[in-house]
């Protein structure tokens, strides 16, 4: 799991750059309005337009502060994967601090867009697993929103069993594949 996070890290940093321009000076209220506007529509997936809008606005956030929070390996924010039991979308208590940290971060950075990627293990049928992956991602999304993130900041996509991180065919691999990845 440690390896997984390390592997994901460069990607996450890149994604982070895209959504959070390093140039300071943009009015803080402006991008937030864009995001709020699209969340008012309240339809999942509409974050797409919000993302495009977010790219065109600057953020009054210093690069140093951003680096400290999202890049600090000791912060709960460094944990970007939530694991699930078989055929379950219930977020286990041990992941509560992770969800809380990301919700707090998103609440503090309303211009930031995050994608929740839902995944399943390889067992059962592929289409059911697509639906199950979406349900897992939506469970995380609901918690994030309850804890202060705005719905418009969150995109949900499910890959079902199509993108395993562990290629094995045993419980060890399956446990690693039943997951939601939080991607900035």
């Amino acid at each position, binding site marked *: 799991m440690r390896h997984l996070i390390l592997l994901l890290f460069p990607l996450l940093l890149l994604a982070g750059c895209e959504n959070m321009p390093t140039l300071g000076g943009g009015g803080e209220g402006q991008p937030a309005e864009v995001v709020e506007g699209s969340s008012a529509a309240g*339809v*999942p*997936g*509409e974050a797409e337009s919000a993302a495009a809008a977010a790219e065109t606005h600057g953020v009054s956030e210093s690069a140093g502060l951003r680096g400290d929070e999202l890049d600090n390996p000791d912060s709960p924010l460094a944990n970007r994967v939530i694991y699930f039991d078989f*055929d379950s979308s219930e977020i286990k208590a041990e992941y509560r601090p992770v969800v809380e940290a990301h919700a707090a971060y998103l609440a503090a950075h309303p211009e930031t867009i995050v994608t929740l990627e839902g995944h399943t293990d*390889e*067992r*059962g*049928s*592929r*289409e*059911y697993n*697509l*639906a*199950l992956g*979406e*349900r897992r991602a*939506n469970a995380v999304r609901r918690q994030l929103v309850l804890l202060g993130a705005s719905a418009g900041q969150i995109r*949900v*996509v*499910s*890959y079902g069993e*199509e*993108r395993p991180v562990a290629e094995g*065919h045993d419980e060890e691999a399956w446990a690693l594949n039943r997951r939601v990845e939080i991607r900035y």
Partner: protein
Amino acid sequence: MEARIRVWLLFLLMLATAPAHAVLTVRITQGVESALPIAIVPFAAPPSGPLPLELAEVVMSDLAGTGRFAPMAVEDLPARPHDFEAINFADWRLLGMENLLIGRIEDSPTGGYEVQFRLVDVYKGSQLLGYRVHAGRGDLRLAAHRISDMVYEKLTGERGAFSTRIAYVEVIRDAGGQKRHMLKIADSDGANDRVLVESPEPLLSPAWTPDGEKIAYVSFEGRKSAIYLQELRSGQRRKLADYPGLNSAPAFSPDGRYLAMTLSKDGNPDIYLLNLDSGRLQRMTSNPAIDTEPAWSPDGHTLAFTSDRGGSPQIYKVDALGGRPQRVSFKGGYNARPRYAPDGRHLAMVHGGPRGYQIAVLDLESGELTTLTDGPLDESPSYAPNGSMIIYATGGTGGSELAAVSADGRVRKRLGLQEGEVREPAWGPFRRP
């Protein structure tokens, strides 16, 4: 009996090593003892040179692959007649061969070949079937499958499905370790494969139109799921569904006018019908649980689908005109991805239990569920259009490959794969002659 089975296993082994262009090769994993003995004599070839394939081998492979025929090994043939007059019936009776297939391939004056064949009843000493078929230079394999169809129908009374095609998804890793997803079609025996779509992102759920001319599928090329419809001949395609959330599990109604699919645009996965003429979208289910994997009954009156509204994935059905869904699967904690048999009385599905995931068939009248395969990771059952076989994907430590099982579970075979992972087979409809 054991010797006979050994004979045709030997023959299949020989076949498996023969044609270099066949990406998938057949391996019988479980046969039937009551298989009908048949001798298939290599056809006489024209003087114009070597043929692209040994036509009789394709027919042998087709018939043996059903488990209902036990073709004699080529090296055991007591003689190789090509004409009815040349048959010494006593030779074949002595060996217990009830049926004999002979023929000739000749150059056609209009280009291509003329293939003539005769199916002979050895005990009566009479011809059961005799035809002459034309085949283009590149169509000998199709001609062979059509001969298999005719022989099969004559001897079993059931329409043959060898000249049909299958669609499936194949995933390979390129030199850089990146996954490449390919949607392919191939002949029903896995040979003659061609790529329809290739993508670095996942492809899944191929679904044939009833006329066999187009295939709908789910592609993640836009970093989310969308449903496309592609013409096989031209390769042209259009997007059928790209709503927020899931766009998945396409299934065409038997009359080709509607597409059933799963969308989650209204909050969670439900079944919708798209009228392909008007573009009108109609919601069929409305439940906070997962509803997905719709399948049409052959009469077009009913949709079966997977739902976990009762707490675990189970099969439900709903009237295609709307109404209240009814649960139809009750045995076991995981039943998903239903597909109707062409008779409309059976449903194949993925059945999960303590031994993993197998293909099972539910008798809709008696409610009896019969497990046909061993698992542990079997998925995506799809019936041949004549209902004789069910093709499915079987997973294991070596990856995933295609396999087929007879609808009664007595015969099983693997379509051995040489390259990547093969999954999500969908058996196409009968082809027009």
